[in-house]
């Protein structure tokens, strides 16, 4: 039988696993190593495209820093402007125009992160084909639970490019819970704290009778072990610059060496209380030597750990649980070996976290289990996952109308009816966004499309129904339908890069920080929309019922209308509201008269019995 494999496409290391009967197993290389370093080296001088992957590529990190790519997962589904300064501490070059996907420049060629990832996947595929002696064509690939739609799509595309049919994009912490559940055969509420090389996820799950139900998930797709290393790297860079006048950032090979050294220090400090660093500087500038203690290091990474704990609190709050409700905490990802993490996570959940499963392999093993479920080999286990980020659509004034809330079980659909704002409007554009903020500009743009050919009708008359469908991969499909004509537009949501992805990473935490200004913005726009409607009606009424008004009254109304227009362009939402109320008051009598006149006219030619 053909094997369907599970793949953990990681920031630092990638793994491939399969089901050996009832047991998931990670596939090792000739030397018995299961982890394949997620490193791809391009050897320019070699014939055609000589590309090395994994351990073979890793050796070129310091000798060919410009053409040896690592941590490419951080760039998946991202635009150039998404990158922070931190990420610019890279020995290889990132190219690409604004609002376009990031590309990595190697010699004269450029590659997308998807293409680089496809090389890693090909390496894993070849390893499995050799070990199992059978072609591998189908796979489950894992992604961080907090990956957005673009990042999921980019990962799926990488699978396709590597010649794999991607049966499922699976969330990493959920995968880990499957492997955990299978081994431990336990039921209850578990929290999976997954800190990898570049990403962080926390998922809260309920396990009962073979059902693995995700209650909530939260995370940060730009926070991982890499960032711990970067803290140390920055410290060393500053010290070397100050003491020896050598800038590591100007020397790719040296930068790479120090980055690897920082990683070593992290590992050493996980078991020792101090670690020594020694670096020979070029041009006979001497030797930088330094001892780092564990407590000094912990001081550097404390802020990063705090951010993960904030995510944990948010996930608990979304699941409507308190730390005591969690029965077990499972640590996943190599970075959870750092003692301070175990300690802090233990403090938060008030219990000692489990770390007896191999934190490097558990995600791939879980992916293999899911692969077997999907191929019909397991029928008593079932994953019920959620979508990590809210989905919505842009409405008047750039406000997000949310259709699907974060942590909604998937697959799911949402329907919403929309209408036109201008008489005779024939096209409605639909802008789909993902994120927790109130304003479109602060969310991640997923797709823009037009529904054309709407029958020309007065504003507000057409009914356009938009249906969002999030499939079991967490990937979105959108359909829009004009309910009068039955005309339909389907949209495959393809990654639109750029815009505000940096926001997308921090969307929930930012939505907390910005809630105040968002609220004012939202309220202001809502008042403006309302004021516009009232103004339009008033103008119409003034024209229709001019005989019902005396000069004074008309003047008064017009004065307040002018005031309202001024408030709309410059005032706060409060001022707009107050002026609106005033306008409503002065027009009250007139509106009532106008109404009764209209009613009278309508009834003029009818007998009372007809009414």
């Amino acid at each position: 039988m053909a094997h369907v494999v599970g793949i953990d496409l990681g920031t630092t290391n990638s793994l491939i696993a399969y089901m050996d009967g009832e047991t998931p197993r990670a596939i090792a290389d000739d030397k018995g190593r299961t982890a394949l370093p997620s490193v791809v080296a391009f050897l320019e001088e070699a014939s055609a495209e000589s590309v090395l992957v994994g351990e073979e590529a890793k050796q070129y990190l310091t000798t060919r820093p410009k053409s040896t790519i690592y941590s490419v997962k951080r760039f998946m589904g991202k635009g150039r402007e998404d990158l922070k300064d931190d990420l610019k501490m890279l020995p290889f070059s990132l190219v690409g125009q604004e609002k376009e996907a990031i590309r990595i420049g190697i010699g004269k060629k450029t590659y997308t992160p998807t293409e680089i990832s496809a090389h890693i996947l090909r390496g894993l595929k070849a390893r499995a084909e050799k070990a199992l002696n059978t072609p591998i064509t189908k796979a489950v690939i894992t992604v961080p639970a907090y990956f957005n739609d673009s990042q999921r799509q980019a990962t799926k595309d990488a699978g396709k490019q590597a010649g794999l049919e991607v049966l499922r994009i699976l969330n990493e912490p959920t995968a880990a819970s499957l492997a955990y559940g299978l081994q431990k055969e336990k039921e209850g509420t578990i929290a999976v704290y997954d800190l990898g090389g570049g990403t962080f996820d926390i998922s809260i799950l309920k396990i009962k009778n073979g059902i693995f139900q995700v209650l909530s998930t939260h995370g940060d797709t730009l926070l991982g072990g890499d960032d711990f290393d970067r803290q140390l790297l920055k410290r060393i860079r500053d010290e070397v610059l100050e003491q020896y006048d050598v800038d590591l950032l100007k020397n790719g090979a040296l930068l790479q060496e120090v980055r690897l050294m920082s990683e070593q220090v992290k590992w050493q400090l996980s078991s020792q209380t101090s670690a020594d660093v020694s670096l020979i500087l070029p041009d006979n500038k001497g030797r930088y030597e330094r001892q780092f203690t564990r407590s000094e290091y912990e001081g550097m990474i404390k802020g990063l750990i705090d951010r993960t704990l904030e995510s944990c609190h948010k996930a608990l709050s979304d699941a409507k649980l308190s730390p005591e409700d969690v029965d077990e905490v499972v640590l996943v990802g190599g970075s959870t070996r750092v003692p301070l993490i175990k300690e802090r996570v233990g403090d938060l959940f008030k219990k000692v976290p489990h770390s007896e499963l191999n934190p490097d392999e558990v995600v791939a093993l879980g992916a293999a289990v899911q692969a077997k479920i999907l191929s019909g080999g397991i029928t008593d286990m079932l994953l019920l996952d959620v979508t990590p980020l809210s989905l919505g659509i842009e409405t008047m004034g750039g406000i997000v109308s949310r259709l699907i809330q974060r942590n909604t079980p998937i697959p799911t659909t949402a329907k919403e009816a929309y209408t036109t704002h201008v008489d005779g409007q024939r096209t409605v554009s639909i802008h789909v966004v993902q994120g927790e903020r109130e304003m479109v500009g602060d969310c991640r743009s997923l797709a823009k499309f037009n529904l054309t050919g709407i029958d020309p009708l007065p504003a507000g008359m057409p009914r356009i129904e938009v249906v969002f469908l999030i499939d079991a991969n967490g990937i979105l499909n959108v359909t829009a339908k004009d309910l009068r004509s039955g005309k339909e537009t389907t949209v495959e949501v393809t990654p639109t890069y750029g815009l505000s992805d940096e926001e997308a990473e921090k969307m929930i935490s930012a939505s907390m920080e910005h809630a105040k200004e968002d609220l004012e913005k939202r309220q202001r726009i809502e008042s403006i929309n309302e004021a516009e409607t009232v103004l339009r009606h008033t103008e119409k009424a003034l024209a229709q019922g001019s005989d019902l008004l005396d000069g004074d009254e008309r003047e008064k109304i017009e004065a307040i209308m002018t005031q309202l227009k001024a408030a709309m362009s410059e005032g706060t939402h409060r001022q707009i509201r107050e002026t609106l109320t005033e306008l409503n008051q002065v027009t009250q009598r007139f509106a009532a008269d106008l109404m009764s006149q209209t009613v009278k006219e309508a009834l003029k030619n009818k007998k009372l019995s007809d009414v």
Partner: protein
Amino acid sequence: MNILSEDTGSERGHFFEMAGESRPCWSCQSDQVTFFNCSSCTAIQQFLHDTDYFTSFNMGYKLNIDLDLLEKQYYELSRRFHPDYFQQKPKEEQEISLGNTAFLNKGYQTLKNPQKRAAYLVSLVEGDDHLPTEAPAELFEDIFEIQETLEEIRALDQSDEAEFKKLKTVLDVSLEKMREFELDEKEKLHSLFVKWDCIEADRKGGSFTDEQKGYLPQMKQILSHTAYLDRIINDMKAAV
């Protein structure tokens, strides 16, 4: 008792025998269609467009529901319809599985929450799913004050911590009041649930009674209040 298992499904099955409309199997045209699949060719069937959440979860049109039972049904139904179990099946069945599961997921989210459950019932009976969001009249004065305080906090200089603390204290007091009011509203809603369920237990099919329909306006009003209170409570929490 597992009321969704096939052996007991037939006796309790009236919910699953497609109230109203019936339809042959899309695949083999047989009319031996159950809620879950076609008895003749085993292909799964799309839920009928008039299937509602109460019916599909076999909960009856009751407003106080056993949440453990609901969860159990949700798991059972997920096992029947989840796309993970249809990867090897024809594309048509995959699509039906996707649509049915999305329906069940939404249904579970709706029935789990008492306010959403009641709003859904109201929309079923009245055929209109728009519920207004309205501030309770008794609270107008408080709400005016809250808006004012929120406004002041917004206008506040970031560094003025003393003033912020003062305003926060004011807001905390109002927050407590809003929460209490919301709790009261929820209790009122609950007592309406009890009344509704009492009549529902005696109703023998057919349409809802006038007495039941008589409770809907009150429910709607409470729901519009709780929706408003949820929102203002969120705004207040965000501000402090």
